[in-house]
């Protein structure tokens, strides 16, 4: 918990420090909650050029009545983690089993599924890239099919919600807009990477100069930039990163590369994905008022307003991390209970 706050502070300060992935102590598992952690095969990830594992650990949290009601089917909330953290550590930090237990006690029973998408660069961005692997498709197809085949789910769109925090909030937008057939409702917490990322000639050159073997020491901000680059402007012919850096041979900013990045930016995607956004039963987004991402998240709220897309929007007192576990339990899951088919 402290490490996550520390890493968030590092992001905020852009302090150059040794980057490590965030860890958290094991989550408490309340009585009656069962947790499984299958390795889910990812055909969509096969052949990725970073050598990221194609079978991913997925935390599956089953509600209290799951064992005692063998004929009951349950809605599923897919919950996407942020950058530089594994699915398991995010599940721990968020105390997902307690959130599932508390909601069940209030009559809202869900299966919550947290897939791991940690990559060599520190995060998949939940995007489709031959360099990192097609994580967008992994979440919306491979994972959903596996969960529906192996658990008693309400195996249709009406029974599926998608949520995530930070990079996972970004993933909620990106996966949701491109795979609206899979999910009924979505909620993005403190979403990162909403507006198009830009570079100067200097910052682009600095990115291109990071030695491949030293990525882990490049600092949180640089690592996040590299993770975005390999996810959004892959180039299978350009090892070792297999990326097009946003810099031309003349040392200028490569506008085509920036356009490719922008093409993965939820803010730039909204206008061309309105039918997908309109198809959701409900959309929610929130961010803390002390989060550096409040401006970005306000922009996508305004873009949705402009196009008349109904959504729930809240700026609450808090930082990028201090209230997110509480809000997942007290706001996000109750939101899905209102909109998903709940079974019984």
């Amino acid at each position: 918990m402290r490490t996550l706050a520390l890493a968030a502070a590092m992001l905020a300060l852009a302090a150059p420090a040794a980057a490590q992935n965030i860890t958290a102590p094991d989550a408490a598992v309340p009585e009656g909650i069962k947790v499984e952690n299958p390795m889910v095969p990812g055909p969509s990830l096969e052949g990725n050029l970073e050598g990221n594992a194609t079978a991913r650990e997925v935390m599956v949290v089953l509600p209290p009545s799951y064992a005692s009601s063998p004929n009951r089917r349950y809605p599923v909330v897919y919950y996407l983690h942020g950058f530089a953290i594994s699915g398991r550590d995010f599940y721990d930090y968020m105390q997902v089993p307690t959130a599932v237990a508390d909601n069940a006690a209030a009559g809202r029973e869900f299966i919550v599924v947290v897939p791991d998408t940690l990559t060599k660069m520190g995060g998949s961005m939940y995007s489709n890239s031959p360099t990192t692997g097609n994580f967008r498709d992994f979440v919306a197809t491979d994972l959903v099919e596996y969960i529906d085949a192996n658990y008693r789910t309400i195996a249709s769109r009406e029974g599926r919600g998608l949520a995530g925090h930070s990079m996972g909030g970004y993933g909620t937008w990106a996966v949701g807009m491109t795979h609206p057939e899979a999910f009924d409702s979505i909620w993005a917490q403190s979403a990162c990477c909403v507006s198009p990322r830009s570079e100067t000639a200097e910052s682009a050159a600095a990115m291109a100069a990071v030695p491949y073997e030293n990525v882990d020491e490049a600092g949180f901000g640089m690592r996040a930039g590299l993770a975005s680059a390999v996810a959004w402007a892959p180039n299978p012919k350009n090892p070792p990163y297999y990326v097009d850096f946003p810099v031309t041979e003349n040392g200028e900013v490569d506008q085509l590369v920036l356009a490719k990045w922008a093409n993965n930016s939820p803010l730039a995607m909204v206008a061309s994905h309105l039918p997908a956004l309109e198809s959701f039963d409900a959309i929610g987004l929130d961010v803390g008022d002390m989060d550096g991402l409040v401006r970005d998240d306000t922009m996508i709220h305004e873009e949705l307003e402009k196009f008349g897309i109904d959504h729930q929007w809240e700026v609450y007192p808090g930082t990028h991390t201090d209230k997110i576990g509480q809000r997942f339990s007290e706001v996000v899951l109750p939101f899905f209970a209102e909109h998903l088919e709940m079974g019984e």
Partner: protein
Amino acid sequence: MLRAFAATCLLGALATPVLAQDAARIEWKTLHSPAIEGNLEGNPAERGAYVVTPPGYDEHPDKRYPVVYFLHGYTATPQSYQQDMRFDEAIAQAAAAGNELIMVVPDGYSKHKGGFYSSSPTTGDYENFVARDLVDWVDANYRTLADEESRGLAGHSMGGYGTIRIAMKHPDVFSSIYMMSACCLEPMVLTPEVAARIEGMNEADVAAADFGGLAPVSTLVAWSPDPTDEGFLKADTGLKEDGTLDPLVNYRIAANSPLVLLPQYLPALNGLEGFAMDIGDMDFLLEPNRLFRAELDRFGVDYNFALYEGDHGNRIAERIRSDVLPFFGAHLDEQN
């Protein structure tokens, strides 16, 4: 008695085709497209389409056929294409060679002379008009082989753009595609000058604009729509008071560029049964097509390419006959 006899004859006539269909038949049909409803330009949700059935369609009521959808170009209509392409003759010729297909040519025209087969609240959702509403209607009203293995998508110029766009975004609808002289592959860059010129146009100016003057308007309404725009275009040029452009506008536009979209949609293109593109060696779109091919090559996407002697339009009718329809004959599944 006489009446009963007449009724029997009439019933017989209904049950048996009166005339054998020895030529392809081309019919102009209208269907309702929910995807176009509610657009801000008033483009009709009742959309027309040519449907061409091959010779013998009536005589073989148990036979089902593969379907090729063909998307026309900018400033054009299915009717203007039919004058040049003679789709019915092309389908009859293919059938005579044993390649029996239904062909469908939908109306992609809009207030500003072309919807770019894109999805915009200002122009309407032409993308889903083609990929969803039209396909559903054709499958419901004709004896088609109603699955992706027997559906092809082709188009010329703006229609070539529509072909690759729809193939990327709707991978489960069409199994094979053919792009002819595709436009709009690279991101279009709106400059402050062009934005200012568009801002200065009134409705009469837009109506009177030539090709070069209108094209940036048509793409702007398709790719940077803005329902809150107080002007008549209902689009966002991004022009600010200080004369500079909001960079988001060009990013929004670029989010419709196949060259830029490509890395995200490789699984869709790699899943195609057949993928072909061609262009004339004197076509003004040669360079962006070369760039697009270089990207396909870089990502290892399989496709057939033909460079032929010609310009943007002078050999399209011929190539539909010599290459496009035979390509679909080779790739689409026929009835067993």
